[in-house]
């Protein structure tokens, strides 16, 4: 079971995230569980693999909104970075960023 302390230690801005959840701790933890199942993680990898930067941008953009709202800073940071690169449709090697996002997601999943 994920605790606020563990979440804080993981790097999330729990104070910020909790406020958006009207200080409802269970609600916050439940939404984090939901967010980690979000299909955007998989879709982002697929779009990049297919070279579809338009699709990748929209997905990264959506994901940014979700993880940002839950203040999951370790995931939010690389997603933000990716979103900005994709907004300019930058042809780059996105593997390191995708790996970072994936690793941070796995890490949080292991705390659940």
């Amino acid at each position, binding site marked *: 079971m994920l605790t606020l302390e563990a979440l804080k230690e993981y790097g999330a801005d729990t104070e910020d995230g909790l406020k*958006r959840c009207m200080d409802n701790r269970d609600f916050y933890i439940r939404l984090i569980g939901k967010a980690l199942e979000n299909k955007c993680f998989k879709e982002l990898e697929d779009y990049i693999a297919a070279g579809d930067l338009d699709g990748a941008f929209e997905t990264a953009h959506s994901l940014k*909104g*979700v993880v940002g*709202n839950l*203040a999951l800073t370790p995931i939010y940071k690389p997603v933000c970075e990716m979103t900005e690169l994709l907004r300019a449709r930058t042809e780059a090697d996105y593997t390191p960023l995708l790996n970072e996002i994936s690793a941070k997601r796995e890490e949080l999943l292991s705390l659940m």
Partner: protein
Amino acid sequence: MKEHSDVLAGGKRNILVADDEFINRELLENILSDEYDVLKAEDGEMAYEMIRQNRNTLSLILLDLIMPKMTGLELLSRISDEPDLKGIPVIVLTSDHDSEVESLRNGAYDFIPKPYPQPDVIKARVSRSIELAENRQIISATERDELTGLYTIEYFYRYGSQFDKYYPNAEMDALCFDVNHFHVLNERFGTEKGDEILKHIAERLETVFADKASFVCRKTADTFLVYCSHRDHDEYAKIVDQIAEIGEDLHTSLKMRVGVYSCCDKKLDIHLRFGRAKIASDKIRNNYTVSVSDFDEALIDAELFAEQLVEEFPKALEEKQFLVYFQPKFDIRGDKPVLSSAEALVRWIHPSLGMISPGAFIPLFEGDGLIAKLDEYVWRRTAEKIADWKARLGISVPVSVNLSRADLYDPELVDTMEKITRESGISRDDLYLEVTESAYVSDSSQMVDRVKALREHGFFIEMDDFGSGYSSLNMISELPIDALKLDMKFIRTAFEKKNDTRMISIVIDIADYLKVPVIAEGVETEEQYLELKRLGCAIIQGYYFSKPVPADEFERFLNDKKEGKG
């Protein structure tokens, strides 16, 4: 004046959150649900549908810009294009600075960035946008009808829908009150008096429906809508009488009717609920003995059928789906009945519905103003047929065509008739004109003058349905007529009730006095034929001799006449 703002102020306002991300929707709902009822949509199309459905009760839309099926910006432009939606304020949800400005340019009230700011900030922005929009509506929209002080239709629907939201279990009736033939009152007494009558009706309706769960509005001229808690049929009958009483105070006779869609289905759009009440009301438009009409599903079928016929009319005319049938009239004054003339009757041979009875479409077209087109079509086809018989068979008889009341309002009528006879190459005494008695009686001298003009131009005028329109004897002597055509009902009742033919005798006496022949239609049996002959009736039409037949079959009668057989 009754106010509903207080009774409706207590409930929560509706807000729609349109965002494809579950987490974002949940967060906003959690923040706002204490103060608002939150509806949620997960794509653009779903959001649009929900906005349309809830347009009367929706106070705000929180809109994500990137959504499947329809983007937020597309939705925003759709909302601002539709007059009944554009008053609903929209706050855009975005993590994108460029989009903020673009959204505001496209009509958004405000934006909320992602990640979301503090809940207090969100709440403040939401409530400020709602307040702004509501104030703007109060300034721009008219809540009250200028003449009567009742709600306007827009506010009526809005308040009605809000009431449903706060009292979802209340059993409600949708009512549509109409004044029978209000235009006649306006014409007789002038619009000033007409307006006074409407004001009195409005006052009376407000008195009767004074409780806070009732809403009254004037929809158009003499149509009033009421949304109220359920009452039974008899109570409505009393209410209609109560309202019509004001006619006495105003020294005029006022007949009102109400269509009731009882315990209405609230899943149905509020406009449609009142559409149903209106259908029920229209059903008894010409019925002077009934004043309350309840809606039932069968009426919808009838209405849809009627709509279909009206819709298909232009195409049917173009494709010549209307055929002219002919029913012979025989002169029975001599030893042997002799073919003297015929009546042209229209039949609609519909490609998929088969033959449609004139009883199904003529009253419909009379109400819809299409009858004048159909009539002219029949006159033309008839004139062409007469010319064709003359040319091919060397013989014809005069054929009578029907003139509707709408035709008599047409100032070009005489010219049209002349043009038709001229263009088809027949003479004016080949075409007889049947004018129903009620047309003479119901209206001004204008109609009588028009018939006179036709007669002066050489057309033969038969007064149709004589005995159904209550012409005064005094008046008949002055009317321009060449024949009296006995209402078919006369023949039926005369022979049903122990051969009581006294009324027929009286009509024949009147005709004798006017020196015009009497034509009896609807004659079906030999007994009727012999009795009418004995009474002195001149001409007979009916199934006893022949039903209405297509033009080629009618040629048989012409050929017989030519050979001296009939």
